[in-house]
Each structure stands twice: as structure tokens, then as C-alpha cells.
């Protein structure tokens, strides 16, 4: 089960991603890898089972102070580091991944625009990344999580993120930018609107979407796990 959830900050990707992870763990009997670290400066990743560290506030501020060239390099290399490989078909849930980088990079971090020397503009480079994704994870499921700008504003005010990226005056444009990227995406994204919905309702809708797009292999794995659980009751 290989899934990308992406959308504008405050649309609900992280909340839903965590719910989806619980569901997938329950259905498969093992937890998919969960990666939600493509919003600068929260970019740290440690493989499970190995020594890890937490980025301190000082580290995060240092990352924010890096030049656009360095930020570009880190994000590009991080995306490739997480690129699935056909031989390793581990389950994963990625939050944001290349969609976030593409939408936020030029507007908020000054790289990845039309004059970007590394791979060209991110909006074009994204399609190259998607070809790699299709090759390494042909059954990947992509969900565009969205909501209206009023909902984003409300969530932004009631529960602001410590390193919030988007600015209130940009919400409509950022939502449009995500829409644009998903329309151009090669990964046949599905769409989930979380406007005015409780988490439970959105989670249920998300699970239905995911179930509708599961590969035959994953359907068999889920059925086999269910049977295995029943046998072992």
C-alpha cells in the first residue's frame, strides 16, 4: 500500500494521514512507513530501528536561514532519497512529498522557479519525479486533500502551526496552485474535500477512496490478514 496525501497546509493532510496509518496498520497487520517532513524547516527523517534525533529549535532556525540553493538541494535530494523502488515494495504513507515542494518552493523559499538550474522549474521537474514514481510504485494512490479558504483560515487561527508556511493573504492562490499541480499530475490523483467536515467523516471518506483504488495485491493482503486474524482468535 503506497499512498501520497497532499494539499494546502491546514487542509488536513497530517491529521488524515495519521488516521489512515492506523487504518492501514489494522488492515495489513503491519504499519506502513510514515513520512511527513517536506515542509521546511521540518525535514528530518530517520529510518525505523536506527538511532535518531530530533531537530532542535536552533536546528530549525538554522535550516530556515540556509540559502535558497542549499534548501533546494536538500529538498531535491530528500525526495529522491524517498523515491520508491520496484524491488522494495514496502508500504508507505507520504504527506506532501513533491507536491508540497513544488507549490511552496518558489513562493516561500526562493528556489524552483522558472530560472531554477537544478532540474528546471519544479512544476516541470515534478513530472519527471512522477515518471520515477510510476516506475517504482506503479500502484501508488494519490489523494489531493483540499477544503475552502474559509476553513483554512479558521484552522489557521484556532490551531496555528509552529512553522507555518502559508500566509493568510495567499490562501486562495496556494489552493489554486495545488489544484494546478494535481491537474497536471501523471499519478491520477483522487480528491477529498474536508470543508466543514469532522475528522471522522473525512477519515471515512478517505478510507473509501483508498479502498476504491487498492491494487489487487493489497486487496488480497487485506483479506489474508483478516482470515489470519480470525484463525488466530
Amino acid at each position: 500500500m503506497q499512498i501520497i496525501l497532499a494539499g494546502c497546509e491546514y487542509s488536513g493532510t497530517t491529521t488524515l494521514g495519521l488516521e489512515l496509518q492506523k487504518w492501514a496498520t489494522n488492515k495489513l497487520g503491519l504499519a506502513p512507513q510514515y513520512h511527513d517532513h517536506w515542509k521546511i524547516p521540518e525535514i528530518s527523517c530517520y529510518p525505523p530501528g536506527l538511532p535518531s534525533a530530533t531537530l532542535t529549535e536552533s536546528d530549525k532556525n538554522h535550516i530556515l536561514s540556509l540559502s535558497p540553493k542549499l534548501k533546494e538541494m536538500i529538498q531535491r535530494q530528500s525526495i529522491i532519497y524517498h523515491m520508491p523502488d520496484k524491488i522494495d515494495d514496502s508500504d508507505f504513507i507520504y504527506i506532501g512529498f513533491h507536491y508540497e515542494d513544488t507549490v511552496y518552493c518558489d513562493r516561500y523559499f526562493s528556489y524552483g522557479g522558472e530560472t531554477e538550474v537544478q532540474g528546471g522549474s519544479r512544476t516541470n521537474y515534478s513530472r519527471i519525479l512522477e515518471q520515477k514514481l510510476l516506475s517504482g510504485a506503479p500502484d501508488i494512490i494519490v489523494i489531493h486533500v483540499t477544503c475552502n479558504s474559509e476553513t483554512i483560515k479558521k484552522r489557521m487561527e484556532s490551531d496555528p502551526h509552529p512553522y507555518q508556511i502559508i500566509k493568510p493573504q495567499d490562501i486562495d492562490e496556494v489552493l489554486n496552485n495545488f489544484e494546478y499541480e494535481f491537474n497536471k499530475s501523471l499519478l491520477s490523483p483522487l480528491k477529498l474535500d474536508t470543508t466543514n467536515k469532522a475528522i471522522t467523516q473525512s477519515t471515512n471518506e478517505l478510507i473509501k477512496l483508498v479502498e476504491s483504488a487498492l491494487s489487487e495485491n493489497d486487496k488480497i493482503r487485506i483479506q489474508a490478514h483478516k482470515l489470519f486474524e480470525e484463525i488466530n482468535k
Partner: protein
Amino acid sequence: MQLLFIGCEYSGTTTLSRKFDEWLTETIGDQGMGYHDHWKIPEISGHPPHETSVTILTEEEEQQVYKASPTVKELLMRYALYYHSPQGPQPIGTGSARVGYYFDELIYAPRYYGYGGEGELGDRRIEANKIETILSKYAPDLVLILVTCSPETIIHRKKTNPHRNEVVPEQDILLILDRFQEEFNNSKIKNKITIDTTSDTIGQSVKKLAKKIEPYLSHEDRLKLLLNQLKQ
């Protein structure tokens, strides 16, 4: 042809790899291999001699890298290591030269950068093993070239042409030379060559390497060599 040059700072890895790249272009006709010689913090970006200076870090950016905590440095370098590892089967004829790569990290990171030791954050032994597994799968013909020389030669080069961002202090030279030899011996890469640059000119070292590399030329390399000779 995929080459990986390793060795203690000042042993001649950068000079030899660049000159050998020129020799390959003249002899075999490979037009500038993907060239990655950016594994010594803070010089971690840019691809001279084949790329414009636009991706090389400014002094200010180098300072930003220097001043990053070991946690951030570890992340940055781990992402870079895997970004520069093959991500699938390589098309026939893919050429690349890497200088330092995971060996630099394995040897320098725990000693000089504050991460990557055994059982520590970003244990580079674990990462090196993973990368060698990837290489054995996707770049099985890669040739590992250990460039070495005497400690006296390193001290001499260090004094006559010091690096801007030197990594190895004089008192560590013997130890680092030994560590590269040790890791070279332990490496699972099957194609291995050693070049000692102690008393040779760069031209002589290139000739020695050219002779030693012949058994590892692929069928495509040999065809290219013949075609290139016909053109001349």
C-alpha cells in the same frame, strides 16, 4: 565506466580523477562523465569540471553548512549519499566518477563532523553497507580505486598547496591513510585497484591507472575505444 576514487585528503583523488577523465575522453571518447566530488563538508555541492559554477556554494553558504549542527549535517549528507547512488539499473554506457562518496563519510564523519560512528546517529557503517548493496545490484562493474601515498608526501602537498577547507589535521594523517586502506580491504566491491602517487607525476599516475583499468573495461568501452581510434 563507473569509477569510485577514494583516499586520504591530499593523496591525489581529485587530481587523478580529473586527469583520468580527460584521458578517457581522449582515448575512449566518453564525453565528460557524471562527476561527483563533493563529499567533504562544507564543499557539498557543484560538479566541476563539467558544470558551470552556478551550483558551487559561495563562502557564505559554506559557512552555513559548517555551522549546522551534527544532526543537520548528518541529514544533509545522508540525503546526498542516496541521491547520488544508482536508483535502478543503469543504461548501458553510463559513465560516472565519484570521489570520496560514502568512504569519506564513513571515515571523516565520526571523527570530524560529530555523527555517523558505530551506534550513533546516522551510523555510517550501516549506510555504507546499504549503499554497497545498491551498487552491487545496479552498478556491479563499478571499479573502486584507492589512491594512496606516503605520509611525507601528504605533509608536503598540504604545505605547498593547502585546501581551503582542510579536513585532515597533520597528526591524523597516518591514521586516516590506514583507515582508507582498511575500508578498501573490507569493501564488498569486487573490482579494486590501488594507485600509489608518492613518487609519480600526474601523467605517470594516469598511465598506471589506464593500464590497471583495462581488465575492467566493459564490452561497450572496448567498442568505443576501437571506434574512437578509427576516427583519429
